[in-house]
């Protein structure tokens, strides 16, 4: 948005079979993706998450715990990462459970290389948009924080649908003062219209009585 280069996407692979780890690593590198492989879930957890879109390729059966349990554990720890599952069993109930829990794809081994690459691209795209949403929200919050407390108050009342007169009455100030503050809020927030401001107030959760 502001021209800052996007951090490199990174693909994680967890599988206890070394030869499959290498093969997948090579496949992802062949299309220019960066890859980090792990033999176990605990190895993955001790790795520091980078700043950039990521996607996790995971076998449903890991040494010590199932991929599905690991998926649930990540969700509990609020680690929001798209997961592509692989399985050597073609277990349908497992597939259903994984997909319901938000998995990007469930690929039975042996899978087509293109299917794996497509699934990972979808996962990275999903993470990209999640990151962007989170980013936008953070930016909006930063601008909102530059408003004076009176301006923040007026933003909440304006976006709740109150007229200048009502706001003046409620705050015990003149209508002119409200108008000035309101103009400042619109300018600082970069809102093009009242509707735009309402959307921002919603995202920030500051709309009075909403």
């Amino acid at each position, binding site marked *: 948005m502001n021209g800052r280069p996007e951090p490199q996407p990174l693909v994680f692979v967890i599988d*206890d*079979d070394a*030869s*499959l780890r*290498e*093969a*997948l690593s*090579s*496949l992802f*590198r*062949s*299309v220019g993706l960066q890859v980090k492989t792990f033999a176990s879930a*605990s190895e993955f957890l001790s790795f520091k998450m980078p700043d950039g879109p990521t996607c996790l390729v995971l076998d449903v*059966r890991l*040494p*010590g*715990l199932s991929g599905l349990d690991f998926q649930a554990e990540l969700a509990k720890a609020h680690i929001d990462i798209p997961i592509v599952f*692989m399985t*050597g*069993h073609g277990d349908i109930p497992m597939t259903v459970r994984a997909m319901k829990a938000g998995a990007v794809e469930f690929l*039975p*081994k*042996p*899978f*087509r*290389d*293109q299917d*794996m*690459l497509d699934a990972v691209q979808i996962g990275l795209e999903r993470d990209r948009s999640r990151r962007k949403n989170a980013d936008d929200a953070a930016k909006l919050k930063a601008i909102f924080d530059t408003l004076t407390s009176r301006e923040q108050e007026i933003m909440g009342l304006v976006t709740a649908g109150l007229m200048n007169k009502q706001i003046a009455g409620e705050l015990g100030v003149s209508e002119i003062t409200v108008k000035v503050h309101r103009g400042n809020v619109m300018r600082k927030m970069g809102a093009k219209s009242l509707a735009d401001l309402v959307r921002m107030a919603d995202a920030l959760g500051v709309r009075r009585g909403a």
Partner: protein
Amino acid sequence: MSTKPTIKRRGAARVRGKQRTRRRAAPRRREATAARLKRELNEALQQQAATAEVLQIIASSPGEPQPVFDAILKHARRICDAEFGNIYRWDGEALHIVAWHNTPAAFAAYRARTPFRPGLTSLIGRMIKTRTVAHVADAAVNEEYIKRRDPSLVAAIEIGGVRTYLGVPMLKDDEVVGAITTFRQEVRPFTDKQIALIADFANQAVIAIENTRLLNELKHRTEELGRSVAELQHERANKLMNLEAMTASISHAVRQPLASIASNGGAALRFLRHAPPNLDETRLALDRMVSDSHLASQVFDNIRALFGKADHGHESIDVNELARGVLQSLGQEFERHGVATDVALTAVLPPIMGHKGQLQEVLINLVRNAIEAMADVADDRRLLRVSAERDAGNQIVVAIEDSGPGVDPRQSAKLFDAFVTTKAQGMGLGLALCRMIVERHAGALSIEPGVPRGSIFRLVLPAATCGGT
């Protein structure tokens, strides 16, 4: 029953004869005859009613002869005008009292303590031997009592106050199955008709006993049949399950290298399309494809080695050596997973006969399972205990105990059904396959909870008998 018409005919003929010769005395005689006939008719009706009732009880209680015995004694005593009566059953060695009616308690207790045994020296003993009725008009003057002091007769007289005594054997196919005895405490012999009636009752008692026996046998056979059908079904299900487990295990083992091959192939093609083509990466990917192909074909070699010539590969195996070898080969895995080991082998164990490769795979799988089970346990608490010993039944018992969280006892039976394959290197057999292999060695594989936590897998194999090939 059969004697009745004869008596009637004889009586009638006599009446006619006497009418001709002595006309004057006729009315009084006719009256007497009529009264006698009436009495006889009453007796016959009574007998018939009693017989019918006993038959009815036989029909309504097919699995239980006791009510039949009780009814027989009740009627026999009343109709035959006896003081009391007993019924005995033959168990192959002696007659045991099973029912009594109005019998003095002390006498019944004596009979219960002292069963009759066959022999020619006692009255009942002789009855059992000869299968004939024993009828003693006055027991007190009987020489068995006076001279031989037949203990059963002594008891009857001195405890039961018996004078007249009747014993009728219960016969089936000319074999004694029991006896009915009836007693009078005064000297008054039983009539032929009364003896015939008791014989009828004896036959009815035999029918009741036979009915019960047949019914119980039928029940027993039906249960047995049901059991063997269930066993067959279980066996069949087991076989199918083993096949399924084996297929799943093979398919899993092959899918892994195939997935690698496909991925490496895709990578190689893409590296070739780079500008300029990335030949180094392409070569590496192709190299990996070649070794993955070997890995895939190795899976089949392993399977053939394991199951192909299952019974040919039997050899004498030292379980200690086998366990030591397996633990040594997995040494790196213990290190990697931070697992401490505690090995307690018994110095001298008899060898077992078996397929070394198969049993090795079983042990490897059990140990790997144990390592996996401890993945979530704190590092310093991961302990694997392996022991081998000989039990009282000349069986070798190998126990593999982990300090993991343990298995829910309700789940532990299912553990062997669900073919949870352990992957990584090697065959990665499931527990179902492990159990199949062990059972093919006439052994058993079971799981039980460890103390204070964890699981113990117990592998029991019969020791080889001397002179094994």
